């Protein structure tokens, strides 16, 4: 997270963001969302830096984009059974299969997590805007970044299962400032 600064005046006003700060923001936001909305105290595992390549027998992946002086995306991936459990807790309704309710719930969870990461870091790096969340459910799916950026991956253990929250954030080459929710493409490709 140490890209050189451009000549844009707005860029020179912002500061760098360390990976440790980003990890702390992800852990804090995820913990806050899960404890407040789901009543779950979750424990973060050791974070890693990598190109995302997830393969699950049956997985739910939710993504939300970030745009501003810094841009990127955040995602959350978990098994279908864990997605159902999280949705059951969020909606206080039993969910036994991946329905619209489950997909909506997982979309809202990543929206809140990335929204709170954004709140935590934008005082340092400038304002950002969130895209509408996208959720994908499939079997044996793989995710791949279209760019070269590494993703910061933070695993969270929930019971016997693991959920991964991933974030990719780097300084924009251009400053796409536009008020409102951006409709840009998330730098992520899915093969179902």
């Amino acid at each position: 997270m140490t890209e050189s600064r451009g000549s844009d005046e707005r860029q020179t006003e912002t500061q760098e963001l360390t990976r440790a700060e980003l990890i702390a923001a992800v852990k804090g936001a995820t913990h806050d969302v899960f404890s407040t909305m789901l009543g779950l105290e979750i424990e973060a595992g050791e974070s890693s830096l990598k190109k995302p390549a997830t393969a699950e027998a049956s997985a739910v992946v939710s993504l939300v984009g970030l745009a501003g002086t810094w841009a990127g995306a955040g995602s959350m991936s978990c098994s279908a059974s864990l997605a159902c459990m999280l949705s059951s807790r969020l909606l206080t309704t039993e969910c036994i299969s991946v329905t619209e309710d489950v997909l909506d719930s997982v979309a809202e969870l990543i929206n809140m997590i990335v929204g709170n990461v954004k709140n935590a870091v934008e005082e340092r790096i400038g304002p950002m805007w969130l895209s509408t969340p996208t959720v994908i459910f499939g079997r044996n799916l793989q995710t791949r970044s279209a760019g070269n950026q590494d993703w910061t991956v933070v695993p969270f253990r929930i019971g016997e299962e693991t959920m991964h929250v991933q974030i990719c954030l780097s300084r924009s080459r251009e400053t796409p400032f536009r008020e409102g929710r951006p409709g840009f493409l998330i730098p992520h490709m899915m093969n179902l």
Partner: protein
Amino acid sequence: MLDVLIVDDSAAIRKILQRVLRQAAVPVGTVYEASDGVEALEILKAQTVGLVLSDINMPNMDGLEFLSRVKAQEVWKKLPVVMVSTEGGQAKVLEAVELGAAGYVRKPFTAEQIKSKLAGFF
């Protein structure tokens, strides 16, 4: 009884807020739902609503644009609009207050936070 309009592009959040309202010890009448500001304005034109809970980040028309359009209409000037959003930055909160928001709840929220914020409107 007070009719309430919930505006959020997340069906999950609309369900949660609906449940919290129903469980709160306040006299809630009909609860209308809209998934963006455009739909919300259509509901306001057709129904008499006493309180609005609105997200900020939504497609088509976001919550701040919706709020400014509500406050621009004489008939809705006194209608309380409480923002419920992940947007927690001071600038965004101030912008909402300047536009006439009656309150601000940051997501994630607890049922108690929502109930306490809304108690004064019933």
